[in-house]
C-alpha cells in the first residue's frame, strides 16, 4: 500500500520529528510513504480567523498535491478536520458566489482520502498493536477537533494501550479544550491562558512523565505553558510514541 504523507506546515517547520516518526511507523507497518513536495498549509489558521478567500488557493494546492493518492495521512486532527469539514464549505460558498470553478470538485476529491494518523492505523490498516515500546508514564489529551469533528473516539487510546512498557494515566477533565484555538490564543490571551493553566494542573495531577495528543498545535500551547512553569512533563505527539521501539530513540 502506498500513501501520501500530509505533514502540515506546523510539523514541517517546527516539529519535523513528528513527520519523521510517521514515516518510520508507517514503513515499519509495510506501507510505502510518499511526500508530495507541492503540499503546503491546509489553510486552517486563515479560515478560522475569517479569511476564507485566502484559503481557496490552498484547497486547489491540496488537490494538486494529492490527486494521485487514494490515502492521505496526516499527524494532525485539526488539519484533517479542516479538510474534511471545511473544504466542502469553502467550495459550496464559492459556488454560491458564482466563482471558484472546480473548487467544490477539488474539495469533494479531498474529503474521502483524508485520514488522521490514528484513524488510518485503526480503520484502514486495522492494527492496534503497532509494535511500539515506550517505557514511560503517559497521559493522553484528546484534542477538540479530533474528538468532536473527526470523532476519533478511543482509537488513540487503543493504540497507546498496546505500547510495551507504557503506563497510561487517565487525565481528569480530558475532554475540555486546552485553550489553544489557533488565533484565539493571541486574540483572547487571558482566557486562553486560564484554560491552559487548568489543563496543565490536570496533567501535573496525573504524575505522568509525558502528555501526548494527536495534534502538535495544541501541544505548542500545552508545552509552552508547562515550560513556563518549569514543569518536567514532556509534550509528545502520539506518532513519536507509536514509532518508538526498544532501543530506538524517537
Amino acid at each position, binding site marked *: 500500500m502506498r500513501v501520501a504523507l500530509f505533514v502540515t506546515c506546523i510539523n514541517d517547520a517546527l516539529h519535523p520529528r513528528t513527520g519523521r516518526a510517521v514515516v518510520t511507523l508507517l514503513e515499519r507497518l509495510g506501507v510505502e510513504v510518499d511526500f508530495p513536495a507541492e503540499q503546503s498549509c491546509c489553510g486552517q489558521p486563515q479560515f478560522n480567523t475569517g479569511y476564507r478567500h485566502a484559503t481557496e488557493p490552498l484547497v486547489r494546492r491540496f488537490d494538486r498535491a494529492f490527486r494521485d493518492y487514494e490515502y492521505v495521512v496526516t499527524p494532525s486532527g485539526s488539519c484533517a478536520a479542516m479538510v474534511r469539514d471545511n473544504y466542502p464549505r469553502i467550495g459550496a460558498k464559492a459556488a454560491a458566489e458564482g466563482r471558484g470553478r472546480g473548487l467544490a470538485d477539488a474539495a469533494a476529491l479531498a474529503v474521502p482520502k483524508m485520514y488522521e494518523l490514528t484513524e488510518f492505523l485503526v480503520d484502514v490498516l486495522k492494527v492496534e498493536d503497532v509494535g511500539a515500546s515506550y517505557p514511560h508514564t503517559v497521559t493522553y489529551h484528546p484534542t477538540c477537533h479530533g474528538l468532536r469533528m473527526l470523532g476519533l473516539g478511543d482509537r488513540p487510546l487503543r493504540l497507546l494501550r498496546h505500547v510495551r512498557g507504557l503506563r497510561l494515566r487517565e487525565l481528569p477533565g480530558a475532554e475540555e479544550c486546552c485553550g489553544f484555538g489557533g488565533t484565539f490564543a493571541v486574540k483572547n490571551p487571558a482566557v486562553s*491562558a486560564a484554560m491552559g493553566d487548568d489543563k496543565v494542573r490536570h496533567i501535573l495531577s496525573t504524575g505522568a512523565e509525558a502528555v501526548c495528543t494527536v495534534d502538535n498545535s495544541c501541544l505548542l500551547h500545552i508545552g509552552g505553558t508547562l515550560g513556563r512553569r518549569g514543569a518536567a512533563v514532556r509534550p509528545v505527539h502520539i506518532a513519536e510514541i507509536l514509532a518508538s521501539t526498544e532501543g530506538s530513540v524517537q
Partner: protein
Amino acid sequence: MSGAYLGMPAFPRAAAVSTRDTRLRANLTHATRTIRDKRAAAVAELDDWAQLRAAGAAVKDRTLRHLDHYLEQLEAAVVAAGGQVHWAVDADEANRIVTRLVRETGETEVVKVKSMATQEIGLNEALAEAGIRAYETDLAELIVQLGRDLPSHILVPAIHRNRSEIRDIFRREMASWGRPAPEGLADSPAELAEAARLHLREKFLSAKVGISGANFMVAETGTLVVVESEGNGRMCLTLPETLISVVGIEKVVPDWQDLEVFLQLLPRSSTAERMNPYTSMWTGTTDGDGPQAFHLVLLDNGRTDTLADTVGRQALRCIRCSACLNVCPVYERAGGHAYGSPYPGPIGAILTPQLRGVAGALEASLPYASSLCGACYEVCPVAIDIPEVLVHLRERVVEGGPVTRGGTRTVLKPAKGHAAERAAMRAAGWAFDHPGVLRAGMRLAARTRRLHPRRLPGPGRAWSRTRDLPAVPAESFRDWWQRTRGASPEQQGGAE
C-alpha cells in the same frame, strides 16, 4: 438593545478582568460543572436523544422557512381566542407598545415572569422612565434586580453570586422594594427561598398587570407556553387582570405535536430535569378565569435580518436552554457579563452580532470569543453548529460582505482595526502557496534559531507572556526528506 449594556468594552478586555476574579471563577466553575454533569445524565436516559435533537432542528427549520405563514396563523388564532396582537419591529417599538398598554390600565406596578425578550429590549428601564415599577419574580432575576446587577446566564441569571452574597443583597435591598428580609436571615438555600417567597407573595397578590415572555407559541391554536421551575410564572400568568407577553417571532411552532418534541428537549438540556415543575399554557382569555385582557407583542428586533442569512439563521432555532453556556470553557472563565448582552456564552457570541450587527467593537469581538472546541454544538438540543456560525461571522467582521440590516440587503465593509492582520493573513496565504518561498523562510529561521528571543515584542507578547516559544529545529521536515530520500531538488520545489 438595553441601555444597560451600551458602551461595554470588547470581549477580550472585559474577559481579561473577569478571569482574574477568583470568587467569580469559583462560583461559575462550581455551578456550571454541577449542571453539566446532571445534564449529561438526564440526556443519557433517553435512547432516542439523537432523533429528538434532529426532529427539534427540523421542526424549527421548517417553521422558519414558512415563518410568515405561521405568524399570521398564530395572530388569527390569538385574536379569535380574545387576545390582541401587536407587531414590534425593534426594541423601541416594543417598549412603546408595552408602556402604552400598562398606562391604559392606570397601574404603576407590574409583576414579571422571567423573560429573555424583555431583557433584550431593556423593558424594565423603559418602564421605569415612564414611572412604572417592574418587579422581577424569578428568584435569580430578583437577586439581579435587587443587587442592581446584570444577568450573567440565560437560565440562572445570578450564577455569578454565591449564597452569602445573596443573603447580603436580600438584607440590604429588600426593604426598599417591599417586604424586608427577615431578621437574622442566614444563607441556607431554604431560608433564602423563604425570604424571597414572603417578599414576592405581596407582589403577586397586589399586582394588576403581569408581563411575560414565552418559550413557545403554538400557531394552530394561538396558545402560549411558559416552562419554569419555581411557580412564580404561574402566579404572574393567572392572578393579574391584564397579561402582556413579549415574544420573539422565532418562538412559534406549528402545532402541538411539534411542541411535544421541545417539551422533551428543553428541561433535560436546561435544568437537567425529565420534566420541569410548571408548564403553563394559555389561549387568549377565558371569562371569569385568569387575566381578562391579553396582549401578545411579537418582537422582530433583528430576527428577520438574521433569517435572511443562510448560515447564520440556524441561531434562530435556539430554545434558550443554556446547555452551551454550561459546557463552554470560555464562558466558565470569562463569566457572562463579558459578552455585553443578556445572551452570553456561545449562543450569545453568534446571536448578539447578528441581532445588533457587527459594527460595534463589542459585537465584532464576540465571534472570536471561542476556541472553536465544539462542545457547544455537541450539547445543543437543536443542533446549532455554533462553531460554523462563529467562523462565518468572523468572515463578516474581517472581510465584510453581503448582509441584511433593517430588511435591506447591503454590502458590509471590512471592520476597521484588522488591516495588519489582513495583510499578515494574505502574506501567509501567498507564502503557503509558494513552497519555495516557505522553504527559504524555514531555512532562514533554522539558521538564526540561536538568536530567537524567549519572549516576543508587540502583538506576539500575547503568546509569550504566559507560554514559552517553541524551539525552531535545525532542519525542517521537507529538508530532511530531501536529504535522506534523495529526490532531486527540481522535484522537491513544487509548483510555484
